[in-house]
């Protein structure tokens, strides 16, 4: 009986960790998407300092979470995300409004997709 109780407890722990992971990832990507969108908006308005600050903050937050993301996300997704961030920063530094706006949209979309895949929903399960 002890074995069964342990197995049930383990299943409960895995489920709880999965839900917690989905929540953390949702929070993390949500925060970064907000900053990236702001960077794109500021670039369109010609506010390059604010755009740069928002993009750098977004990139910094993403990098800071490296130990966590490397445990729960496929490494190919992380590398692809890093490339998207470099591209966004490059366009921000070169003050190219159109390219910055589209790069920001790309980063947002990519983050949103990573988050969606990890959420326990019918679409992602099947």
């Amino acid at each position, binding site marked *: 009986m002890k074995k069964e109780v*342990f*197995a049930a407890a*383990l299943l409960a722990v895995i489920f709880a960790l999965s839900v917690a992971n989905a929540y953390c990832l949702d929070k993390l990507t949500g925060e970064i998407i907000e900053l990236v969108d702001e960077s794109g908006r500021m670039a369109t308005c010609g506010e390059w300092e604010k755009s740069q600050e928002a993009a750098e903050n977004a990139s910094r937050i993403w990098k800071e979470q490296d130990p966590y993301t490397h445990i*729960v996300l496929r490494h190919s997704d992380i590398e692809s995300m890093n490339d998207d961030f470099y591209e966004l920063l490059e366009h921000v530094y070169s003050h190219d409004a159109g390219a910055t706006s589209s790069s920001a949209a790309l980063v947002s979309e990519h983050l949103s997709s990573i988050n969606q895949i990890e959420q326990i929903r019918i679409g992602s399960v099947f």
Partner: protein
Amino acid sequence: MGVSFVRTIIVFLLLVVSLRIMGKRQLGELEPIELVVAILISNLAAQPLQDVGTPLIYGIVPVLTLLSCQVLISGVTVKYSRIRRMICGSPSILIDNGKIIQSEMRRNRISIDELYVELRSKEITDIATVKHAILETNGTLSVILYPDFSPLTPREMGITSEDTGSPVCIINDGRVMSDNLRLLGRDQKWLKKEISKRGASAPEDVYIMSVDGKGNIYFAVKDGSK
């Protein structure tokens, strides 16, 4: 991580149901749950090992989920015979008292050739020597020969043999098998009397009790019961 967890449970249940539908002959000495775990675990563990870009957690979560499911379901099937029958099925009698039960053969999709193969693998060449052949839930065939054809038969030893019939289990780990009790033409009153005669106070204290055709009783109390 969460998706892996839910997917593992879905695939596990789907495979158990599939193997159950496929029938006993596909199993080969493993119960359906054991076979499912054996099939899945090696593949799940191999994926993160082969691809370093896949986090190890993508292997750990499904493997732990599978093991937990297996332990849980095995525990439940030990405790509840009805659930065990549902998941593992029940043994099929292919030969009963020397008569081939053709409906059971068809139900289990076993041809007469395959039955012969199984019998030959048990060094039985003459089907007429088989009294009972039972296809067990793990896909193996258990064969009971007529007493005269059993190894070291009483006939060979010059002793008159007596067919006591197959023993029927009436208490299994504290649970009374009411159907078997009825089959023997006995009732609860008789059971209580036999149990108390052997020093146990209730069926819950009995590990196993079986009765053969002549009324001989095999009895074992549970460890730790008074």
